[in-house]
């Protein structure tokens, strides 16, 4: 990542959330005027079951330094079981990602219900702080830079 050294590092963190629980929970954080870090941006999906791990890979490809994936707590899925399948998928994704050396502190899975505006705000702050401390995802960005170098 070509970054001016005296510029503050503003991590790019993408959140993939389900529309029934976490999206609404984030709305609640808003209506409750909870203040949190501005680095996390949300993409709304119907359900965590819709979240393809490809989304997360793509987010990193496009320059994200961290990713949050969040949805309804187990048992609360609007579609009854989407988050259960997602949980397994994420567990294996977690395994594979960490095996190939992606620091999993950059990726946070969470259950945030529509009532948990507080939890959402805390989650965002926690992940933002952690990614800020980790710095830009340079090893991954390097792949991108190398790929772009092929297009001189």
């Amino acid at each position, binding site marked *: 990542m070509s970054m001016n050294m005296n510029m503050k590092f503003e991590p790019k963190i993408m959140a993939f959330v389900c529309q029934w629980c976490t999206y609404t929970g984030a709305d609640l954080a808003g209506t409750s005027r909870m203040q949190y870090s501005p680095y996390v941006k949300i993409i709304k999906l119907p359900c965590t079951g819709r979240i393809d791990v490809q989304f997360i890979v793509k987010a990193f*490809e*496009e*320059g994200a330094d961290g990713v949050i994936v969040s949805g309804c707590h187990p048992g609360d899925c609007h579609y009854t079981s989407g988050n259960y399948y997602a949980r397994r998928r994420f567990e294996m994704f977690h395994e594979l990602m960490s095996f190939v050396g992606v620091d999993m502190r950059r990726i946070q899975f969470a259950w945030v219900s529509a009532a948990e505006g507080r939890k959402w705000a805390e989650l965002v702050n926690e992940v933002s702080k952690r990614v800020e401390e980790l710095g830009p995802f340079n090893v991954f960005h390097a792949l*991108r830079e190398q*790929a*772009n170098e*092929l*297009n*001189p």
Partner: protein
Amino acid sequence: MKSYNSSIVTKQGLKQLIENILAHKYRLLAPKKSGEQLSFETILRAEEVVLNQLLRTMTTLSPKEVFFPRTEPVLRYTGQEMHDVEPPTPETVLFGIRPCDARGLELLDKVFTWDYNDKFYLKRREATTIVTFACSDQASVDEHCFCLGVGGDPTASSGSDLLLSTNGDDAFLLEVITEKGERLLNSCKEGVELQASDKRAADQLEAIKDRFVRKQDLTEVRHKMPEYFDSDQLVQETYRCLGCGICAMSCPTCHCFDIVDEPKAGTLGEGARVKNWDACSFALFTKHAGGHNPRELQCQRCRQRYFHKLAYYPQKFSEESLCVGCGRCSRSCPVGLDIYQAVTHVLGKGRA
């Protein structure tokens, strides 16, 4: 071509030559061991060139990548604006390719200059001086090599600018083939002891020929194409092909490519139009957008590759076949397919 100008150089002298090449800021590419493989890589220190190794083992991928990279931008864009691209062309010395590879480049030249000149290929060609190693070592030829069967010669100089061959245990014969070769040699020969000689690599040809187990002539298939095209034997020979692209991608003369637009990750509206290696063995290669595929079956795709090498290219471009007999495709094929074996079997059956 210039008349022969041969000299004998010691191993030490050759090392010095390599050091001089590096010192003169040439980009030096030579076979280098990475993992279990030998591949052409940029050499930064002379000792990275392990002569024994490159004499004995052939690189997995051919040197075509130096001129025709696996991916290469042909234009860039920013929004609606287009920008031309020039291939990076540092003065380059490609060291240690084989005569079959060198010959392959000459065959490729015909494709990339046919009516339309592909500047990306040509500019790289112009900027590169080729130092070839003849297959004169005891172990240079293995059971996959069959250049003799496709009009090649393990000591040939065509396509090379300088030709090296072994001369006893600790010395090499260095032949200047072209002016370009001569220029390189002249600019890098300080401290290199060159002892004029009247020998040629080709003198060793007869001895080397004996090392070949594959000697049958494949070129006749070209004339019998219609006869063999629907040969059951050919289908049988290629039935186990799984449709990967190893053969095409390791081949020194396979040149099929795809053109795609590659958006630059992390930007909106920026990117490049790139030329990527492709292979006729891929199922989607000829598949129409509408779903129709003129080469629906894998054996048809295999046949395309064999025939393109041995029949179509000679028919179109020259009397030479596009296969140079380096044996890379059969060395790397994961299911043991072998163009030489397949074609000789078919020829055998055809005769019978």
